[in-house]
């Protein structure tokens, strides 16, 4: 694991790692053993943000904690994936198949047979950037983003898949629709997809 600590003001630091896998492994370990004073732990593509209350946990102590924490490479064996039923009726499904040189059926089969993991959030409350162990569904974002993508839209962009938690503008290629509630601020936890969680898409008519 390559770890570099970067400064991020008087209440935060960034832990920079070699890639997404390392981020997930270290995030798993840090999240499992947060000392008092850690306010936020935010995984991203190559970095983990550690936000502290410096009156409780000084930044130097937070840095020492990050540096001595051993990453946990494998998820718990008994982990149950989040089941996400999807109607594969997205407006861009045929175009995605064309870009990938696959049939529409192949795209659906690949999407449902892959095991996805929530790498990080960030675009909107409850949105998860999902990754899998292959890049056979890698497609570029749409050249022109849509001004409105409906809630529940299932999309692909770059190495990621994701589900829009609510209607918003968006540039992802849309392949389907999920009815699941991805974000409910009154629920505990409010997000269905949390960083580190496993996800399986299941085709429904």
């Amino acid at each position, binding site marked *: 694991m390559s770890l570099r600590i970067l*400064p991020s003001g008087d209440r935060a630091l960034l832990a920079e790692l070699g890639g997404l896998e390392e981020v997930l492994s270290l995030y798993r370990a840090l999240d499992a053993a947060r000392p008092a004073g850690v306010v936020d732990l935010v995984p991203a593509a190559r*970095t983990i943000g550690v936000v502290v209350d410096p009156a409780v946990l000084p930044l130097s102590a937070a840095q020492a904690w990050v540096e001595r924490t051993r990453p946990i490479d494998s998820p718990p064996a008994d982990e149950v994936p989040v089941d996400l039923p999807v109607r594969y009726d997205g407006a861009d499904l045929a175009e995605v198949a064309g870009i990938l040189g696959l049939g529409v059926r192949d795209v659906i089969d690949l999407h449902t047979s892959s095991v996805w993991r929530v790498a990080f*959030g960030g675009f909107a409350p409850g949105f998860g950037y999902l990754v899998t162990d292959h890049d056979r569904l890698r497609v570029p974002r749409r050249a022109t983003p849509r001004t409105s993508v409906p809630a529940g839209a299932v999309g692909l962009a770059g190495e990621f898949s994701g589900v829009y938690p609510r209607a918003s503008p968006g540039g992802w290629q849309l392949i389907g629709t999920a009815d699941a509630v991805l974000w409910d601020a009154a629920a505990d936890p409010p997000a269905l997809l949390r*960083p580190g969680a496993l996800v399986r898409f299941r085709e429904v008519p």
Partner: protein
Amino acid sequence: MSLRVLDPGALALVEDLGRPGWAALGVSPSGALDRAALRLGNRLLGNDEGSAGVELLLGGFAARFETETWFALTGADGPAELDGQPIDTHRAVRAPGGAVLRVGRPGRGMRSYLAVRGGIAALPVLGSRSRDVLSGLGPEPLRAGDVLPLGDPGAPVPPVDFVPVSAPTLGAVELRAHHGPRADWFTDAAVEAFHDAEWTVSAESNRVGVRLDPPAAGRHAAPLLERRVTAELPSEPMVAGSVQVSPDGRPTVLLADHPVTGGYPVIAVVAEASLDLLAQARPGQTVTFRRA
């Protein structure tokens, strides 16, 4: 006990000290931009420092106290009156039932805070009553006719006659800024220029971030903030105070409603203690970044 909004002015939002702790799920901390001002208002009333108040943008606000209530105005410095009589800011004022408060356009600063004894008792979302304009969480922006419930008063109103506060400056706002996580993505000259230059607050600023315009051409060759590394940055965590530099070389200082991650390199991070000053900087005002 309640407060009826007669005129929200440009923008009136319920804010407390925000909802830190949810960033991994894509939720910004949000909360009052001038935190010291909200805290002071609450202290003047014997409230919890984190009680919710109303953040007013450039005054123009009017409301009626439906029952007798103590309140305090803090933050931006400007005229205010209760039933037509001028009132002091930065002190606890008793409003009789039915009294109408009008907050005029401030002469200095951008945001005033109306703290009310007992706090605004709007429905909390994820532990906070703050309106987050980016994610849309928290109470809707206030509209004429809205009735805001007030909480139960806790401690008595403390007997404070006068608190010394320095009004927001009309001149250059001097901020402290730390070295950013991607300062090394910029040339040394760019980092120097960032700290040397007098930046101007753009009108395209809001609770998500303050956009800054570069100094008029002449002293510095464009682009001012030249990159050493031109690769695309994978999205990384942002904090309030992160100074992102977009590809055209313009910096944006992220504020409380910032996106939790962003893909532009951060050249510097404004010190926590300076963020309240930035909350009061008006479009057209000059901003400088001293090394923290």
